[in-house]
């Protein structure tokens, strides 16, 4: 018990300790399987496993899928456009990290 009398909760670090099933990813993103399947077809998400039942998504898929969902909803971008946007955003993030490391940003 902690100070405020509420039990202290321990969570799992999604990016390191969690692999998500298709059902869990849909639930976490509040979206339907069909949309996730479209994104997989575009290479936006890359689960391991043979069939949808066996698919396991890396923890980072949660961030990618939620970002994809926001982009598709807010900007009405199709899956191919989202896949491109995600790749470009990753690249920009990597470049920004280099700038920041050098103290330039």
């Amino acid at each position, binding site marked *: 018990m*902690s*100070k*405020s009398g*509420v*039990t*202290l*909760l*321990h*969570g*799992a*670090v*999604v*990016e*390191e300790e*969690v692999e998500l099933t298709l059902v869990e990813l849909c*639930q*976490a993103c*509040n979206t339907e399987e069909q949309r996730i399947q479209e994104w997989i077809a575009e290479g936006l998400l890359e689960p391991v496993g043979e069939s949808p039942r066996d698919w396991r998504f890396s*923890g980072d898929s*949660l*961030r990618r899928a*939620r*970002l994809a*969902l*926001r*982009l598709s*909803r*807010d*900007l*009405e971008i199709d899956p191919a456009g989202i896949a491109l*946007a995600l790749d470009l*955003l990753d690249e920009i993030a990597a470049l920004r*990290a280099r700038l*920041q*490391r*050098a*103290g330039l940003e």
Partner: protein
Amino acid sequence: MAFKDYYEVLGLAAGASQDDIKHAYRRLARKYHPDVSTASDAEARFKEVGEAYAVLKDPEKRAAYDDVVARGESGPGFQPPPGWDAGFEFSGRDFDFGPGMDQGDLLDALFRQQARGGQRAGRPAQGQDHHARVMIDLADAYRGAQRSISLRVPVLGPEGRVTMREHKLDVSIPKGIRAGQHLRLAGQGASGAGGGPAGDLYLEVNFNPDPLFRVDGRDVYLDLPLAPWEAALGASVTVPTPEGPVQLTIPPNSTAGRQLRLKGRGIPGSPPGNLYAIVKIALPPADSDAAREAYRAMGKSFAFDPRKHLGANVS
């Protein structure tokens, strides 16, 4: 609700066509989308643009809005016709800083619960997963931390009315967490229906900006100013780290930009990150006779041409 000129927000004149409105919205939404834009006011601008579009894209709401404007009721106490912006579903943002459930998730949760409320005594359904964000200091990632967070969650009452309830949680932030990572707290999302299990809560962890240290993944960077003689002759200097100061040996002839690695002093983990001290040379000001004399003596002691590689002195 304050009156806003929705046409102005979209950069349009009042007579704009529905196509113009759509184009203006698309362009501004791309420009200010918080996942894409780095502008500090992107979030606010994006919301404003979304709000304007939600009204103007719908001919009925647009007519109601135009009518209010035409009747000159656009004073500070402007009250829009009730329900005119109902159903405006703002998408799932969780960049409101500080913990809290984002509005999109909230609306989704409401609609889900209402939908579920309709099918009373239906089969068990798992509660929705919730998302929130929590900010920690870099030092918290070295030691681990504890955060009390308070979420406002919608709860469906017995008469089908939805009320907001405060959900307080004390969460342990594990040592070694990195910026942008998520914690999954099982069973802390929305409660299930018909005996179904509760959803999970995902907490995105981010770092408050630090005045000294920059972070990239597990590695941490620090600018380390050195006096010219320290860099030239070598020295032992005290360097701050998020865990407290350490003593660092500066090798002789260290040049500006050189990275001195403190192995394993980055964010803990397996393997832990490194801390890099980046050498900066700080020149003491020549603001006294003694200082000027020291610089002159230095000049005489070296046959040093810092611009040699520019080739301008070649005769």
